[in-house]
């Protein structure tokens, strides 16, 4: 659509700008302020320069949490995207059953995140949880509070349970926009199921798939509540992801300086990655001639 140039449009955007400035820029300034100062209590602050940044950037703690975070987000994307596509192909195309499946699938998305954690915390317990009890009955010594590998499997399965539906619903929306004529043409050409998927369905899903990857990457990168409830970052530090580590530092130990520097580095990483995704996304849209 041709848009007209009109700077008065700023007035319509103004409420949003003011609101977001109040709830984003102001707090962010506080963080910047803390990140360059040191305190000995009594609300007395001293200029500390880049000391905190150096300390945080060279600390093992941040490196380990960052590595764990990238592994987690990578694993999540590698499982959820293909699984989500597969599930979306299984959803009935129309009718009562279609709505029925969609409503049930959207259910995990609207459960408060700490309840999601609670559900899996209970579900995985050997004494009262179905999953834990089943594992024990199968002779597997499953214990997510003691064994780091089990803790990881539990939080990954939990996230798959929680968010795969989002990917599936997005892909389903993409599939729904394909006219029947495409399938009929493929039928006449005698295309195999794989070819239909590869040359008709996948290209049509591209746009929504990009949104799915973007949302899933961002949300898994800042995940906090669910793993915190289930494992509390343990055993040891094995499931301490970036946000858990940050909250531990800021609200637990009240190390304001390092926590603020950590926040800024964290935010810059996300900003950089979002910018890459956003650029790819908008350029992709142009390539399609929209």
């Amino acid at each position, binding site marked *: 659509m041709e848009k007209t140039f009109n700077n008065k449009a700023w007035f319509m955007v103004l409420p949003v700008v003011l609101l977001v400035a109040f709830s984003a820029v102001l707090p962010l300034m506080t963080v910047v302020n803390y990140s360059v100062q040191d305190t000995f209590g009594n609300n007395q602050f001293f200029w500390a320069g880049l000391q905190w940044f150096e300390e945080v950037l060279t600390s093992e703690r941040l490196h380990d949490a960052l590595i764990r975070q990238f592994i987690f987000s990578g694993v999540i994307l590698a499982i959820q995207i293909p699984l989500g596509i597969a599930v979306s192909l299984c959803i009935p195309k129309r009718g009562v059953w279609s709505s029925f499946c969609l409503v049930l699938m959207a259910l995990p998305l609207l459960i408060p995140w700490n309840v999601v954690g609670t559900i899996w915390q209970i579900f995985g317990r050997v004494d009262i949880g179905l999953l834990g009890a089943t594992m024990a009955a199968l002779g597997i010594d499953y214990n997510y509070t003691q064994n780091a590998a089990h803790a990881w499997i539990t939080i990954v399965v939990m996230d798959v349970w929680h968010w795969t539906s989002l990917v599936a*619903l997005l892909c389903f929306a993409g599939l729904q926009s394909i006219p029947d004529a495409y399938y009929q043409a493929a039928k006449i050409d005698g295309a195999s199921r794989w070819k239909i998927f590869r040359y008709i369905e996948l290209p049509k899903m591209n746009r929504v798939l990009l949104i799915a990857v973007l949302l899933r990457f961002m949300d898994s990168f800042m995940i906090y509540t669910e793993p915190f409830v289930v494992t509390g970052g343990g055993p040891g530090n094995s499931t301490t992801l970036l946000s858990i580590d940050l909250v531990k530092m800021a609200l637990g130990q009240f190390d304001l300086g390092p926590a603020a520097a950590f926040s800024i580095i964290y935010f810059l990483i996300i900003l950089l990655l979002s910018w890459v995704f956003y650029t790819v996304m908008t350029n992709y849209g142009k390539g399609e001639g929209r």
Partner: protein
Amino acid sequence: MSTAVQSGSSRINARTVGMALYLLFLLVPIYWLLNMSLKTNEEILSTFSLWPHNLTFANYMVIFTDSSWYSGYINSMIYVGLNTVISIAVALPAAYAFSRYRFLGDSHLFFWLLTNRMAPPAVFALPFFQLYSSVGLFDTHIAVALAHCLFNVPLAVWILEGFMSGVPKEIDETAYIDGYSFPKFFIKIFTPLIASGIGVAAFFCFMFSWVELLLARTLTSVDAKPISAAMTRTVSASGLDWGVLAAAGILTIVPGALVIYFVRNYIAKGFALGRV
């Protein structure tokens, strides 16, 4: 569709089985919570059963009669409602501006808004606490509602912009020629056209405000404490009160389930944010 039937029943069966397995995977953990919420604590801890043998609603009665429990639901509802209204109200004109006009710095502004959707709440927890304490809004519903605007306003702008761009610009121009003023046009003609978009945006605002805990817990202590934070205090003298915890969990799922039921016909399009 005749084509689907002719292509062989084996494929349809495989799809049905796949769907059934996935739904089973989704529902079993929820069923387990429901199962636990209908048992007494003794039964939960002593016997392992797939369904409650001594069906009891005592756990739910605890929640409905104890004000520290049910006020949590009311608090959550209030700030979620406030947040949804604020987000939609400010996002509507902004989304219109983005979908209809080019102006100085528009694309930068749009990206800046989106980055707030991508900002980790953990970064904002401490500064929010200090900001709202200093202006005297700590432990109020409006504080949580405003804090949740951080990620809901950008999302609402994004969704609404998608839906508004689907409305041809000729409609605006025709309305002006017919002598409609801008506010009258916006309310009488434009809003009904994007009603489903507003519904979808409201759904997402509800969803993300309802499920968020970190900020809601940090910004409240007693008066505006959300239900999900109240759930962390089931530790009593006799250990964890599993039954009540499970019942509280089940009750947090109910509002979400109701909302999904109402938007079920828009779910698919809505989740694609109007951009298919």
